[in-house]
């Protein structure tokens, strides 16, 4: 299982037995949804198909056969600018670690999808808004390098508010670092699929999100470069509701596919099946033996 036991235990203990803990209101249709049903339905509203944001480990759980080996989690953030605004950067990081149970805004590792061993990167919006600082850049680059060495395909799920301000230009430079890692990975002949989830913007969309061989977007995800509010302020008009949605981008030829969460795993497996000879895929722990124990 991708989520360590202690982690899921922690989560259950944290939930107080109140209504709010059991039920959640769909922000799209207003339906009260039973949390356990919602989780079982991949966090998609059963009434209107609204896709709630998904945590990285839930996402990984929903994809892999049964095995996931996390790598790069020893890479953790520093505080290079000694940043303080209302709170210090260190305090913000501590807060996000506590509320998200993540060590950073991306989880990277190896897993199998219907028998295909893949390198998997999953961003999580609940950690600093999925912003890319040094650690996100470093983990993504590391993942692509490890995948390249093993000639494994790579699937990266993006969810990001852009570059992380609290790391200043060091954060922006991760666009260059990840671009170079993608270049080395794909020019060595490996398949790279990106899955853009809600929201994918800024420095992440302008680097590895849009540099893949196949770009999939999750239904109704908000995707773009500039933030919607920035654009509204610039043009001084209200933007149409579908502006910067996955469906809008598909119409304008920016992405390959829009897929609902329910169909996502099958879609990925079908694409892997076209690009990779199934007979050559090894069981995961044979592909990454040094990570076995």
């Amino acid at each position: 299982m991708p989520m360590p036991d202690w982690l899921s235990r922690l989560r259950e203990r944290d939930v107080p037995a109140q209504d709010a803990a059991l039920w959640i209101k769909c922000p799209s249709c207003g339906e009260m949804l039973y949390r356990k049903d919602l989780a079982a339905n991949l966090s998609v509203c059963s009434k209107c198909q609204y896709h709630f944001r998904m945590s990285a480990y839930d996402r990984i759980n929903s994809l892999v056969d049964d095995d996931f080996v996390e790598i790069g989690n020893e890479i953790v953030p520093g505080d290079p600018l000694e940043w303080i605004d209302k709170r210090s950067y260190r305090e913000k990081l501590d807060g996000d670690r506590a509320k998200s149970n993540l060590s950073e805004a991306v989880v990277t590792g190896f897993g199998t999808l219907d028998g295909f061993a893949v390198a998997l990167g999953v961003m999580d919006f609940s950690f600093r808004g999925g912003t890319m600082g040094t650690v996100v850049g470093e983990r993504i680059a590391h993942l692509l390098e490890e995948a390249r060495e093993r000639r494994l395909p790579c699937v990266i799920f993006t969810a990001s508010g852009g570059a992380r301000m609290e790391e200043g230009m060091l954060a922006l430079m991760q666009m260059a670092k990840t671009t170079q890692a993608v270049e080395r990975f794909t020019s060595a002949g490996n398949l790279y699929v990106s899955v853009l989830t809600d929201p994918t913007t800024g420095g992440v969309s302008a680097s590895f999100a849009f540099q893949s061989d196949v770009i999939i977007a999750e239904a109704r995800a908000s995707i773009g470069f500039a933030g919607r509010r920035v654009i509204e302020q610039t043009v001084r008009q209200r933007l149409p509701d579908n502006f910067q949605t996955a469906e809008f981008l598909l119409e304008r030829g920016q992405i390959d596919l829009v897929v609902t969460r329910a169909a996502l795993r099958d879609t990925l497996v079908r694409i892997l099946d076209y690009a990779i000879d199934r007979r050559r895929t090894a069981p995961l722990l044979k592909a990454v033996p040094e990570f076995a124990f």
Partner: protein
Amino acid sequence: MNVIVERERPLAELEERIAALRARGTQTAADRSALDDDVRMLEENYRGLLRDLFGNLGAWERVNMARHPKRPIASDYLAAFDQFDELHGDRQFRDDPALVGGFAKLRGRRVMVLAQQKGRDTRENIKRNFGMVSPEGYRKATRLMRLADRFGLPIVTFVDTSGADPGVASEEHGQAEAIASALMALTKVCVPVVASIIGEGGSGGALAIALADRVIMAENAVYSVASPEGCAAILWGDAARAPEAAERLKLTSADLLQFDIVDEVVPEPLGGAHRDAVAFIERLLDAVDLSLRDLERLPAGDLRERRFSKFRRIGRWQEAHVPRVVAVP
């Protein structure tokens, strides 16, 4: 209002007085020498005032210096090249006047030049979209990078933009993809790439033409992950706190030299590049020229490898001890 322009007001008065004194006719040699003494005294005051006003600039003052209406812009640098033949268009939709590119010769060397072009006045700024590049501009840049690579022409870029264009059309035409592809093209080229940050280096829109073997920065230019105004609006809901955000963002040339994001800083005349634009432009182009000479000496195959290691190293993080949790069913 630009804080540097405000601060220059007393200087302008003094300049006028010096000029008026100089223009004055004199009768005798004694008058002449007394007048010279007065002029010298005023000039001494002027230099003192310059030092007082600009001797020690903070981050926000440098932001304003980078946005100064008289600061040299891309076209001023291009005019100092031996020759420049502009090439237009992305071959798909439009020519973007905010990004200028083409064949050029610099100190006798054949190069491909790419530059973000602001305007000198309101009319030109509207035409140039204030130097904010649209996807078409980045696609033109990508096309010219590949062309340069085919003919072994080094790529020389000038960065001066508050950021990529944040308009509706730019989003519709794929701003993110256009920037991502420009970054990818700069990663792939086998020719030397030298980028100069001459004014504002605004976020990903600036980096799109600055993934370079050597990054040169004018002393008072700024290069930032977000605009100070945008940063202040996000952090405090108050764009007026931009000066504070500017300090925090570490966007000055001295900061970026420390972080190895910039390789070389070209000093500006006291009071900013516009106070002696011609000499400053020559100095910056000298630095570009020298960088190209160094890079050309490297074996062709090494360039990409070095570019890779340069950016691969950038960043600061810590290493945690993590017990490896592997759950095998």
